[in-house]
């Protein structure tokens, strides 16, 4: 052990209570920082997982058609140009889904593509009528771009492709229409009425989906909606979801179809989660700030009480840097112990919170608090604590280093 560290350790023991105060603030600061980040990130991560599991990473819909464009008036080499306002319009739906799917599959980050046909219909049950939306899918394809299999809460998804009149309905829809597994209901559109059976019930947790979305096999949906060709949109699954924005931009450019990434689609909610995460981090950082102030206070007291010891150390050949280091070591020791205990506290509380029952439905379905276990929460908490505590410790450490030994011994040190 270096002599500076040795001295720092002994000086620490001289101010046990004050140091314990600083230590507890660091432990609380680090621990609570970790917990808040774990919970807010947990919910954010779960929300992302839910939207990726329902609507996919990328959605391709509506063909882009450019309207008037500026052009040369007198041939290719002409200096004259007819200038018009640049513009484009969208032609609803996808005319040639198979061709587009082939093109989309050539993007290296694409994990799967599912064509979807949707349309508004009236659902009639013995209990009531509701407006719902039919989603025609090829189950094999759709499983590659969604979590539909995991979202089934009742029934067997394997029974769906084989049953022409089979359907998968949302849990909220089932409750509202009082439908159970195996029950039948009618769908009405454009004057025709067809009867379907509830093959399975899904729950995404997203009310807007669970209340209105009915999955039918693609062939049946085409027949019901009377759309023999084309698709409403393509749902694309990605290998690396974080590259969705770049991929969407490239797809728009290459495929000339309106393409939206999950980040763009869910921008509002993602911003809400980000704001929550930052605000909770700021709130909890107050503890770390208090820890910094407590450390400042404790070290300033030690400097005042140990001026003679500082002078004697200087007389023995300890440099100003040594003195400064002795005080910074004290802060480092408390910070290290505090951070380690803070990690443990953070992990224990995070675990406890993750087991706490809570019933969330609306933007996702959760029965307990959702937490995210990430080393980065621990790293960020540590960096915050280190920055605040070490910054606060610098002032007393520099003051100690500036003391003139002659003035201290003479008794005139300020």
């Amino acid at each position, binding site marked *: 052990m270096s002599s500076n560290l040795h001295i720092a350790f002994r000086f620490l023991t001289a101010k046990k209570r004050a140091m314990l105060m600083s230590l507890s603030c660091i432990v609380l600061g680090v621990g609570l920082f970790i917990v808040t980040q774990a919970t807010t990130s947990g919910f954010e991560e779960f929300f992302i997982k839910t939207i990726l599991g329902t609507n996919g990473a990328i959605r391709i819909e509506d063909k882009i058609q450019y309207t008037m464009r500026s052009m040369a008036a007198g041939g290719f080499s002409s200096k004259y140009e007819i200038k018009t306002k640049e513009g484009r319009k969208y032609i609803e739906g996808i005319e040639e889904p198979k061709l587009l799917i082939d093109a989309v599959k050539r993007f290296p980050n694409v994990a799967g593509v599912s064509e979807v046909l949707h349309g508004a219909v009236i659902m009639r049950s013995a209990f009531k009528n509701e407006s719902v939306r039919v989603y025609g899918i090829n189950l094999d394809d759709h499983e590659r771009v969604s979590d539909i299999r995991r979202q089934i809460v009742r029934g067997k998804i394997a029974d769906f492709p084989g049953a022409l009149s089979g359907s998968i309905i949302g849990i909220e829809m089932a409750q509202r229409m009082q439908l159970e597994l195996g029950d039948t209901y009618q769908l009405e559109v454009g004057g025709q009425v067809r009867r379907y059976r509830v093959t399975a019930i899904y729950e995404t947790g997203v009310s807007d989906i669970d209340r209105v979305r009915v999955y039918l096999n693609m062939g049946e949906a085409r027949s019901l909606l009377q759309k023999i060709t084309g698709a409403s949109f393509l749902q694309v699954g990605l290998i690396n979801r974080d590259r969705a924005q770049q991929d969407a931009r490239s797809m728009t450019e290459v495929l000339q179809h309106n393409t939206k990434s999950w980040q763009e689609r869910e921008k509002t909610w993602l911003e809400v989660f980000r704001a929550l995460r930052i605000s909770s981090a700021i709130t909890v950082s107050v503890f770390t700030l208090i820890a910094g102030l407590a450390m400042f206070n404790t070290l300033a007291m030690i400097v005042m009480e140990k001026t003679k010891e500082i002078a004697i150390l200087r*007389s023995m050949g300890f*440099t100003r840097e040594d003195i400064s280091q002795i005080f910074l070591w004290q802060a480092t020791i408390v910070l290290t112990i505090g951070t380690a205990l803070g990690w443990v506290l953070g992990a224990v509380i995070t675990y406890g919170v993750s087991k706490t029952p809570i019933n969330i439905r609306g933007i996702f379905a959760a029965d307990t608090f959702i937490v995210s276990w990430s080393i980065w929460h621990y790293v960020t908490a540590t960096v915050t604590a280190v920055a605040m505590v070490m910054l606060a410790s610098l002032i007393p450490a520099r003051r100690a280093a500036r003391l003139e*030994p002659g003035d201290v011994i003479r008794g005139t040190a300020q």
Partner: protein
Amino acid sequence: MLPANDKVALSCTNIHRYLGQGEGRVHVLKGVSFEARRGQVDAIVGPSGCGKSTLLYLLGLLDRQDGGEVWINDRKMSTGSDAERTAARGEHIGFVFQFHFLMQEFTALENVMMPMRKLGRLLLPAMEARARQLLASVGLGDKSHRLGTQLSGGEQQRVAIARALANEPAIILADEPTGNLDVKNSGMVFDLLTRLAKENGQAVILVTHNTEIANRCDAIRPMRDGLFI
């Protein structure tokens, strides 16, 4: 340039020092010159406020003069950087203060080892052996593991002497080393300091009010109003 003299461990010429500021500024040292030789004990005596301790701190490089020069082992230190002066203090100077100034959280042994650990000239076992030997030579061999707070005033001062001798410095500066001790302990501490210094060929400069102690030194340098008389 001062003449080279092997026996001169420390010298100063024409030292001036002002203390205080504004109207309260006092000319404490008014051109003091002094020389300390190895193996010799010099006593600086004089009334309170005449500048004895101020001179001692200047000689010990704990303070900076406003004018004049300080030489340690033929090396000019008065204009040296803070780092040079700090290194010189650690290597060439041992201090004994009136109020002992032991590090209370450390044992007697650790206090004596501290200057050695800083200098880093010896390995840890050698440092410990030397510290034990020094504590034994000041009669505290059996109290080496006591904290500063568990030692009497006389014992603390003896530990301070052992600590001052730890790095075998060329110069021992003692500011009223017996000022806080009873007669019996005063005699013991002075005898110890002078005996060990003479054995090792160290220059001892002692500031004291005690005429009995001063009379037992090799030379007495009386001061008044910032000058030797």
